[in-house]
């Protein structure tokens, strides 16, 4: 095997365009016309070639070209106006480049911009939204049906997966929810203290924090954290299983993935969410009570004993009830998006983002519905 001609012993010259003084005498190209020589001066060579092509009306002499590749050949070809000039002298081994270029002269252009695109896009968004809604509905229905079938023989249920999910979404989330809850409690207490002090209504800090945290802030805060933490993980996990065909492998074994994958996650989050809410709420109240001791001289003990009078117990039930709904909602949305992921990396990223955004949004919508439904429950007027 002889080494290719590009390694010829002669020193490599820079690419050059030489014009004869008489335009009819033609153009001479010499030097190396390959990517190594052209990558720093392509623009200049392109301009020189253009000048040569417009002013000269004679033969093109390329026999002095030492090296040529497609990069250089295309540059020359474009200067020629994508057709061979009348007179060209070429080295025989360079002939092939221009033959190939001549063979493929006509191209297909990028699809032109269509003014109806915007409208079509809007319509697509609407359809996608509707499709998501029906998809969700189908998933919920399918899960319910498969669950009902499973319940006839509960020993076959995915209890091990449920327990694993409870551990992952619950026990392992204790740290982050406690940290965030505590800080929010402190901040809220600090801010309220200033206002209350101005009115001499120091004792109302218990009412404000009690109702605010137990009824609203605890559940929503917790749901946002869990949606970001566990929701994204569920979507990514199911998405990867979709990409690697593991879901199909489950289906062909006759194991419905709704029972094996969706149900455990929904159950687990419906169990852990209320518990996490209880935990976050307690820590947030503790943080608030500690801040109140500093700013308002209300001792932590006083805060705790005053709580039952200020906050009717039904608020706690409401907060925990929200937890069950939020948990199931987050898990369903996360599974829905996970199952729709296409086998490519971009889709995985988009799907996870959409899943988190949608689950947080739907949690807040659900919270608003709760607020309207239970607006006369559990609020004591002094």
């Amino acid at each position: 095997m002889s080494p290719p001609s590009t390694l010829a012993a002669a020193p490599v010259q820079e690419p050059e365009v030489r014009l004869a003084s008489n335009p009819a005498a033609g153009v001479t190209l010499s030097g190396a016309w390959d990517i190594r020589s052209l990558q720093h001066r392509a623009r200049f060579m392109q301009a020189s070639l253009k000048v040569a092509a417009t002013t000269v009306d004679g033969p093109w002499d390329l026999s002095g070209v030492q090296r040529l590749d497609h990069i250089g050949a295309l540059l020359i070809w474009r200067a020629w106006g994508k057709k061979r000039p009348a007179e060209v002298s070429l080295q025989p081994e360079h002939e092939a480049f221009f033959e190939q270029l001549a063979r493929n002269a006509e191209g297909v252009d990028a699809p032109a911009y269509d003014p109806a695109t915007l409208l079509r896009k809007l319509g697509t968004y609407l359809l996608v939204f509707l499709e998501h809604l029906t998809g969700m509905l189908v998933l919920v229905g399918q899960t319910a049906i498969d669950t009902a079938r499973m319940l006839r023989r509960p020993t076959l249920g995915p209890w091990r997966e449920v327990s694993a999910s409870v551990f992952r979404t619950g026990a392992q989330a204790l740290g982050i929810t406690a940290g965030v809850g505590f800080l929010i409690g402190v901040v809220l207490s600090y801010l309220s203290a200033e206002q209350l002090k101005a009115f001499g209504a120091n004792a109302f800090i218990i009412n404000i924090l009690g109702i605010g945290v137990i009824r609203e802030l605890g559940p929503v805060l917790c749901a946002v954290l869990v949606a970001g933490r566990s929701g994204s993980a569920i979507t990514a996990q199911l998405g990867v299983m979709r990409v690697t065909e593991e879901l199909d492998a489950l289906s062909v074994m006759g194991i419905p993935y709704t029972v094996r994958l969706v149900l455990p996650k929904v159950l687990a989050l419906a169990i852990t969410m209320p518990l996490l809410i209880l935990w976050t709420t307690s820590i947030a109240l503790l943080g608030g009570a500690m801040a109140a001791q500093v700013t308002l001289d209300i001792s932590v003990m006083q805060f705790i004993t005053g709580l039952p009078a200020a906050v009717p117990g039904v608020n706690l039930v409401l907060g925990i009830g929200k937890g069950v709904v939020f948990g199931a909602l987050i898990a369903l949305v996360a599974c829905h998006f996970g199952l729709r992921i296409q086998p490519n990396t971009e889709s995985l990223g988009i799907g996870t983002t959409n899943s988190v955004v949608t689950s947080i949004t739907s949690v807040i919508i659900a919270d608003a519905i709760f607020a309207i439904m239970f607006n006369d429950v559990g609020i004591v007027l002094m």
Partner: protein
Amino acid sequence: MLTAPANTPIIEVEGLWTQFGSHVVHRDLNLRVEYGEIMSLVGGSGSGKTTLMRQMLGLETPAQGGIKVFGIPLQNTPRELVHRIRRRWGVLFQEGALYSALTVFDNIALPLRELRVFDEDYIHDMVMLKLDMVDIERRHAWKSPSDLSGGMVKRIALARALVLEPELIFLDEPTAGLDPDRSESFVNLIRELHKKLGLTVVMVSHDLDTIVSLSHRIAVLAEQRVLVHGPLADVVKVEHPFVRNFFLGERGLRALSALPTEVPQS
């Protein structure tokens, strides 16, 4: 500047050791790839073919020993220089490794755009030229890689590997996952491009048909070293269980007998 004298090999592996924990994969391995040849790396699973290739690409660093590409060592070399070497080779990964977020057109245009010297018009023509070279119809240019079949992905990945006019090209399992018909035509495509562009090809493959019909020389990796390196006729003479099973087993003989005259001589 970067051009090595003609008598040095394009790739030179010397005294290479690779170790994963206490498991030695390569023990004092030596290998030379000459300019212009098609060289196949063959070996059983776990023999370290892919690792060796990744080391040649500078993606992994050997425990000991050195690899020179274009006469320049990959280890302890300024990043800038390694970067310049990397512009002179092309790599076809096993699954194509097309960027899934980009269209076919943008995938092939990416290396050209990175140079920042060519205008979009030029890039368009160059991408179309490369698509023609790998026999992909131009209407596929605006599709996304996930809409293409495995064979097309490989061809487009090859076009992307060729777009900066490399002198050296690495193929990782070029025909894996292709049906016999497609793999036949892909082999022909590689052979044709090799002839036309004067490339040096380093290939890792399990497919005997591909190896036999393309390689000038074959390097068999076994027992942590290069067991034998030479033309097919020399390789099959070696008495070693792996060689016997691989080339002279039932499958091997079938492949060899099907292509008796097409064995290229270097």
